[in-house]
């Protein structure tokens, strides 16, 4: 599958001397969304970080458009990072409290040399418009935003560099039901419009089944099952999957 955007093979991660991810393998095609579900401690967030090389795996391979990320020099990795971005659960922690919305969204554009001067401001406004926020928020600080607005700013920042892969680590979990649905619709629209591939990590199986093309179930640091949502729900093979389905239905 040479057309794959991301290929993960036999990825193992140790933390504090304990193996937390074991033999993880999957491929992600351009524009595809893979959901990752599992109980707390199953390794979901570690997987997100390992794929982005925010932590060093013990073994395995992560290939981005065919290039091995785990051995690539930091300088080249930086260029590739432009294409892979992450949105975390809590925007209050991921946005710098001392930076205005404009500065937060401008930062990745400046770091990757994508815009400067007057053009930079225009690009920032366009990024905000993409997530359905108006220019009136430009000069606000994170504490002056609602939870929903802050998460949209975090998304605007992540999309600023025109990534091909968005990793969403419980990106909707902190939002209220109605805001969650607004944001989920927005993410789905953007994914289609920008041909974004997405690694969507969540404990909300219902949302994952609605949002994702395929679902991987993590349990004890391993992918125990991976398939499309309809098959997974209709014919779960692993006990961990059945437990998650039972929890989502009751």
């Amino acid at each position: 599958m040479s057309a794959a955007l991301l290929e993960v093979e036999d990825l193992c991660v140790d933390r504090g001397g304990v193996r937390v991810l074991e033999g993880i393998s999957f491929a992600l095609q351009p524009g595809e969304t893979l959901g990752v579900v599992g109980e707390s401690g199953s390794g979901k967030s570690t997987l997100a970080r390992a794929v982005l090389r925010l932590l060093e795996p013990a073994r395995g391979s992560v290939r981005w458009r065919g290039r091995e990320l785990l051995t690539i020099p930091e300088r080249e990795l930086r260029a590739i990072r432009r294409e892979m971005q992450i949105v975390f659960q809590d925007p209050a922690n991921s946005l710098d409290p001392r930076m205005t919305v404009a500065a937060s969204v401008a930062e990745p554009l400046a770091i990757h040399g994508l815009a400067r001067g007057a053009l930079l401001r225009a690009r920032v406004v366009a990024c905000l418009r993409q997530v359905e926020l108006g220019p009136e928020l430009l000069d606000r600080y994170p504490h002056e935003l609602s939870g929903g607005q802050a998460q949209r700013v975090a998304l605007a920042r992540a999309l600023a560099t025109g990534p091909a892969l968005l990793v969403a680590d419980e990106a909707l979990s902190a939002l209220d039901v109605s805001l969650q649905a607004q944001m989920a619709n927005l993410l789905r629209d953007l994914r289609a419009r920008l041909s974004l591939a997405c690694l969507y990590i969540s404990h909300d199986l219902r949302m994952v089944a609605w949002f994702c093309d395929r679902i991987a179930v993590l349990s004890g640091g391993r992918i125990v099952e991976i398939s499309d949502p309809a098959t997974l729900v209709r014919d779960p093979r692993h006990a961990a999957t059945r437990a998650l389905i039972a929890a989502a239905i009751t």
Partner: protein
Amino acid sequence: MLQVVDLSVRFQTPGGSLLPVRGVSFNLQRGDSLGLIGESGSGKTTVALSLLRLLPRTAEISGRIELSGEELLGLGESELTRIRGARIAMVFHDPLAALNPVLRVGTQIAETVRAHRPASRKDSWAAARDLLRRVGLAAEEADRYPHQLSGGMRQRALIAMALACGPALLVADEPTSALDPVAQVGIVDLLRRLREEGAALLLATHDLGLAARLCDRIAVLYAGRIVERGAAAEVLARPRHPYTLGLLRSLPPPLGSRSDARLQPVAGSVPSPWATLTGCRFRDRCPRAESDCAAAEPDLVESAGSEVACFHPLEAR
């Protein structure tokens, strides 16, 4: 057993006066369960905390809160201490924050036991082990520290502590929101069992499914007021208030339904607590709003078996 009448909470802040709860009334009989449903800022947690007067000192609480005929709002701190834990106990959403990290779980539960009745160390420790067994943990967990337990186990330990003095009413504020879905099922089963054993439950949550599983009745709060109230099954199956319907429609389709349609969220967001609003607080987000919704705020009135605060409610079917 519990009667809350016209409860309002006001905070005076440098930026002005905030009213997170306005005129909330409800009753709870022995063994009853009521879910207070709402999104952030709806006032559900403020209501829950005001029952035990756990709000900051700057909170001005008005109305009446009666527990078995005793008015709680007039009580002094020492009298409140007698009630907290003994007659009303609280289960918080984040057990890691609610437990003391440097004390063994058993020590903390034993401490609660001794706070309300004379007991030797040995007896209170034995009571702690019994309580842990009652919430589905091994008695040996008493020797462990909070960080050595999983999230679900910590929440069970916290519930064990809440049960230490056999309270008649459990107030649970998002008791499962910090847990993964599988651990949630365990806590739901436990709370359900405690209900069957006779404890009344007041559950504050944003999770409609959780309320449906645990509560006989639910009250939907919006911007500090109850906008709909009734039997849980009835309200969730046939909501009358447009906001309740909006919340239900915001949820992704049930598992296995194969629906690929866009979700249908309530438009806009909850009004800022600082906003000075008149009329129906929901009207800016409401697809059924008409001119009269701006003129006055609708009262909660009985209509076809449930109560709804809306001038243009959905048809009762």
